[in-house]
């Protein structure tokens, strides 16, 4: 066993640690890497024989890169390991995305979102009710209403209001005022689900800080 082989083992370990720490802020990541590197240097200086097995024991005592990264990640979360926090974090995002946009996935997507909302313990009951009722289908209906074939604000209402004998262009122009109400509804129907989505995201985050 040469010094070079040992260096490779150490370098490999530090590289794994660097990767495992990818989610930390850059300055903390750099500091932790430096500190662990210094630790290894000190520990190696104390080794009587520099063999690969003694280096591996040294690294084993130090703990796996993933273990160190988990300890770094639990910093602001006293409960549960990082991996589960990350999982619930992505679950949260997926749930909110499905509530907003799931309707476009054959409508079923929205129901999956509702199911995930109710089976999660990230939200309180009233937030779950809010997320379900405002507005069923998320952005599906307002967008379908705006651009879809079914009674669009900009489409059929215009055609229906053409007065007999009038030119289509004029008829269309005169039909725009009644559709302003439709546009208003449309704006509300877009804004409400977005506000609820933002609320769901925030509620989760404050819950995390207190848990």
């Amino acid at each position, binding site marked *: 066993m040469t010094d070079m082989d040992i260096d490779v083992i150490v370098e490999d370990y530090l590289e794994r640690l660097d990767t495992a720490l990818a989610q930390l802020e850059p300055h*903390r990541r750099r500091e*932790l890497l430096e500190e*662990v590197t210094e630790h290894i240097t000190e520990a190696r200086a104390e080794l009587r024989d520099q063999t690969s097995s003694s280096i591996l024991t040294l690294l084993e005592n130090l703990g796996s890169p993933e273990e*160190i990264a988990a300890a770094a990640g639990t910093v602001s979360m006293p409960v549960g390991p990082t991996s589960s926090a990350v999982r619930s974090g992505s679950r949260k995002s997926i749930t909110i995305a499905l509530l907003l946009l799931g309707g476009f996935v054959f409508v079923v997507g929205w129901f999956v979102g509702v199911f995930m909302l109710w089976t999660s313990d990230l939200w309180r009951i009233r937030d779950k009710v809010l997320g379900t009722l405002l507005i069923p289908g998320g952005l599906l209906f307002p967008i379908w209403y705006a651009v879809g074939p079914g009674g669009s604000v900009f489409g059929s209402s215009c055609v229906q209001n053409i007065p007999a004998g009038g030119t289509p262009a004029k008829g269309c122009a005169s039909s725009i005022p009644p559709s302003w109400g439709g546009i208003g509804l449309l704006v509300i129907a877009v804004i409400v689900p977005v506000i609820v989505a933002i609320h769901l995201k925030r509620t989760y985050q404050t819950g995390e800080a207190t848990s």
Partner: protein
Amino acid sequence: MLYMVPGSTSKQLSQMRRGAIEYCVLALLSSGEQYGFEMAKALAEADGLVTSEGTLYPLLSRLREEGLVKTTWRESSQGPPRRYYRLTSDGRVALEAFVVQWTRFRDSVDGLLKTGRTK
């Protein structure tokens, strides 16, 4: 708490350990500054406290962010300069407060556990 299964007991113990360990690190520094390797060895020698030495560094990082510990560089007799850790005045106050609370807590728990056993 009869309903408790061993799995949740070990989870609770690990949470308690995690809570106490920060203060063990502060206590290591109460008699003066130390460098990381030295502290890691002392922590690892304490039975049942940490499973691996390396988890000391994320802990130190958190204590530093909280302003309880700070780092200084010192020349060492052999090799490159070493990073030393020491308590800030906030760190000292936090440690003293913990020691008072911990002693009360430990005595109460010990007392109750003992009466439970003698019955």
